[in-house]
């Protein structure tokens, strides 16, 4: 098998749910279902021994029995150095716990696709900072995956959505409200180029916050009646949380829900109407609205300039979010997109566009475009499939159900779909158009320097929202007489003071001959699409230079990653 045919698994590693997808030989992205047959896997891990755990739906079930040994929402702690959890006498970092989820996904995909999987593209919220991105990459490494790149969730969603809308010029707002994170991104599709115009968000706002509002309300109602608070005990809390979660979901389609509470022998059914729920969480919706307005402002656009509004993440199913967006944009959100799957699908596509330039489907499309140009046909007519296997590949998202059915290995159903929808069989669209993806920075990058009063300050070199790749070249000078070494400290974050930013890397140039104050030094920051910052420091007079690749670090050294990987390998993951 050639490298070009090796699968790149696109993974949406979510706070509450994870999903994965790959692009098949015909260039069609497909969701990869887990061993249980579902498109999404709960990002929940239950440890039942010092070397064994279970990931997914089974782990969720255990939360009411054994809450102390179940981990949820670990994504909220990615990149936190002092956060470890202990199970059966062993400590786990957020990276290691995420790695267990990734391993389950990887193994399930290998089983389903019948091939070993090494390469992956993992998505992160656009607003994740470098430590969080680094930690995500480390989690992949610990799980034995070769993480080709980390890509922003809204970008991935836009790729998947924009794939059959390329060619024109469109502006797109992606609102991604997941289980635990929130971000808004404005993107532009120009021909086959997809670029990020602006992005903002809150890594600590998500569906979980809506659940908590409901939970607090119910617990307080119960308390008012019985002077007992079900939040005070771990297992009853978890049980109530599950009920509130389900009530939240049903409130998206129904006007009212009843949440039964059973705690210490007292029982009560708390009724919640959709109206009440919207009152309880009105300020959260307001936060979403404010962020969306800020992002539009950053992109220098108005709601009227947008061609589409794309909703991503399960929490966007809540009518309050849809209504808010409809009120602002004056149009209904884009339909035909599965908010749970679109990110993983886009990640798989990005994996092919970026890392498999010779994928057969890309070649095929190039030829198709050439032919189309010759014929100057406005719209290609459906043609019968060239191969029966290609039949299952439908147009964009119309084919999702069919793909899943096929993935589940049900051949009869596949044939059935084939017979029912012959008009969707279109080999040309099944091939991939070569899309260029331009991501943008979400945090400014800077350098620590001394000003004329020799006071430290941070100078921004690459602004937030800069399209990648980007290069900055600037000249600085010796602050003191007879300096023999220079240290460049690379910072991330907004602010002018050292305490307001994070130092993400250092480059030192040593052994220079002593020279006077004012001697020039050149600093070059090149930030690539792979989210790796290359910093080069050049002594202008002698030409001596030093380059360092600053990969975003999640806090683990490569030795630690190796150790964690071998530990992970010895862990039983069900």
């Amino acid at each position, binding site marked *: 098998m050639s490298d070009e045919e090796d699968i790149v698994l696109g993974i949406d590693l979510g706070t509450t749910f994870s999903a994965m997808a790959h692009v098949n030989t015909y260039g069609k992205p497909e969701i990869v279902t887990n061993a249980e047959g579902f498109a999404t896997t709960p990002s929940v891990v239950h440890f039942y021994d010092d070397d064994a755990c279970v990931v997914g739906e089974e782990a969720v079930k255990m939360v009411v029995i054994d*809450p*102390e*040994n*179940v*981990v*949820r*929402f670990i994504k909220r702690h990615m990149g*936190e150095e*002092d*956060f*470890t*959890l*202990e199970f059966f006498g062993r400590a786990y970092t957020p990276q290691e716990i995420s790695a267990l989820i990734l391993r389950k996904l990887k193994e399930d995909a290998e089983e389903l696709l019948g091939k070993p999987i090494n390469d992956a593209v993992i998505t992160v919220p656009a607003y994740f900072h470098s430590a969080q991105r680094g930690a995500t990459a480390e989690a992949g490494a610990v799980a034995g995956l070769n993480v080709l790149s980390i890509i922003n969730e809204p970008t991935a969603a836009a790729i998947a959505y924009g794939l059959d809308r390329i060619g024109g010029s469109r502006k797109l707002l992606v609102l991604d409200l997941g289980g635990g994170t929130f971000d808004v991104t404005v993107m532009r599709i120009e021909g086959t180029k997809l670029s990020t115009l602006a992005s903002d968000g809150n890594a600590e706002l998500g569906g*979980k*916050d809506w659940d*908590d*509002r409901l*939970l*607090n309300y119910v*617990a307080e109602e119960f308390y008012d009646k019985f002077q007992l*608070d079900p*939040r*005070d005990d*771990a*297992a009853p*809390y*978890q049980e109530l*949380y599950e009920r509130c979660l389900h009530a939240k979901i049903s409130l998206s389609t129904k006007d009212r829900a009843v949440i039964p509470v059973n705690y210490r022998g007292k029982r009560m059914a708390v009724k919640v109407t959709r109206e009440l729920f919207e009152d309880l969480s*009105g*300020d959260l919706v307001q936060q979403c609205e404010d962020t969306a307005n800020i992002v539009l402002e950053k992109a220098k656009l108005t709601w009227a300039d947008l061609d589409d509004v794309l909703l991503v993440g399960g929490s966007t199913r809540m009518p309050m979010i849809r209504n808010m967006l409809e009120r602002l944009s004056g149009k209904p959100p884009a339909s035909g997109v599965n908010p749970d799957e679109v990110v993983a699908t886009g990640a798989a596509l990005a994996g092919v566009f970026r890392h498999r330039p010779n994928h057969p489907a890309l070649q095929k499309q190039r030829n198709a475009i050439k032919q189309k140009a010759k014929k100057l046909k406005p719209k290609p007519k459906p043609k019968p499939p060239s191969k029966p296997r290609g039949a299952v590949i439908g147009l964009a998202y119309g084919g999702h159900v069919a793909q899943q059915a096929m993935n589940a290995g049900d051949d009869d159903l596949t044939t059935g779909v084939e017979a029912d929808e012959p008009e969707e069989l279109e080999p040309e669209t099944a091939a991939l158009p070569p899309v260029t993806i331009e991501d943008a920075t979400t945090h400014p990058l800077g*350098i*620590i*320097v*001394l*000003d*004329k009063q*020799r006071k*430290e300050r941070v*100078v921004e070199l690459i602004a937030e929202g800069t399209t990648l790749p980007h290069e900055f070249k*600037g*000249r*600085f*000078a*010796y*602050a*003191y007489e007879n*300096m*023999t*070494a*220079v*240290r*460049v*400290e690379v910072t991330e974050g907004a602010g002018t003071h050292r*305490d307001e930013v994070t130092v993400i890397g250092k480059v*030192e140039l040593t052994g220079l001959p002593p020279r006077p104050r*004012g001697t*020039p*030094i050149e*600093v070059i920051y090149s930030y690539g699409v792979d989210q790796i910052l290359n910093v080069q420091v050049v002594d202008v007079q002698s030409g001596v230079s030093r380059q360092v690749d600053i990969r975003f670090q999640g806090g683990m050294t490569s030795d630690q990653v190796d150790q964690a990987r071998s530990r992970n390998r010895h862990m039983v993951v069900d």
Partner: protein
Amino acid sequence: MDPRTLDLAAEFCTLVGSPDLLTYLGAQAGDDPVSVRAKLKKRRKYMQGMQGNPKYKKEALFLIKHFGALNDALGNLEAYLEDTRRRSESEHLPVLEMTVRGVLAGGGLTPEQEQFLRHNAIQLGISEQTFEEILRRMAKEAGVPLVGGLPTPPPAPMRGQATDLYAILGVDQGATASDIAVAYQQRRTEAEVSGGATPDFIRKLDIARKVLTNEAARQQYDLTAARTGPPARAREVVPPTSRAATAPPVQRSVEPAVTANLSRLEILGEPVRLLKIGGAGQAEASITIRNGGEGLMAGTAEADVPWMRVSPQRLDPEAVEQELTIRVAADAVPDNATTAVVTIVTDKGERARVVFEVQRSNLGPILVGGVVAGAVVLAIAAGLYLQFG
């Protein structure tokens, strides 16, 4: 022991609202440190299942992240408890001092005020002995004479000074609103004719007229003037930072010059207060209001922000003294919130405001300063400056 360890232990106790870690764990001062540590470990394990629980989230995350520090703090129980005691005093002393200073600025201390402050001190965990020391020291600073080791009561009210609003207008205490309007016009014309109409004088006249023609304001003025002498002075001296403690209640022994069958809204305590938000679920505070008049007092109380709830929202017209409860769900408070104002309005048009300043328990990671040893290294570390600009 690392001072940072003790800082974290103290921060944690503030978060969970416990005086110290032993109380939190249900242990005693004489317990074996090994058993106390085992309890902490058990608690941490339990809290792993509570990370997502909105009521215990902060507690759980703190225990998980700073378990090491808390465990270290329990390594030497004696040193830890001594540190806790010192912290609680040093935390509350400045608050008490400021309150005492504010009261003494009125010129003295009545027995009621003294009793109130003493009660306050005990509630803050300050011994009576320490309290009396503060009282003597502050009295000396304020120039208030001592009798039997305690400051003397304030002097009788002084009329006829520059800040006496009646004297400014040249009317007596029984003047009606129309008397005041006439007097105002006279004083103003006189001043303009004689050339004494400085902006400062006009401002004083305006204030006097405004206060004395507003019934509620006038009652309040009469009362305050009767209690502490020139009110303006007292108000200037009370530092606004004394908000965490409650000031003495408005004294009732002085009979104000009010006609019968009128209610009068009085708020006990400081107009600006601190609302500590942190840790579990709800923060609560209360406002005690009193009807200082004789008539019924109906009215409403409400907060200016949606995340603060006041109950009851309607005042009990017949109650002389009643308590309003202020509730805030920690999760509902927006990150940028700094203050919330509760406004109480009576049907007689009296209006009073209590400002709550939101204070969050600091849970953010504390940066450990990266001090680079030696000047030479420092020069290298920061050896660049901007050439352009």
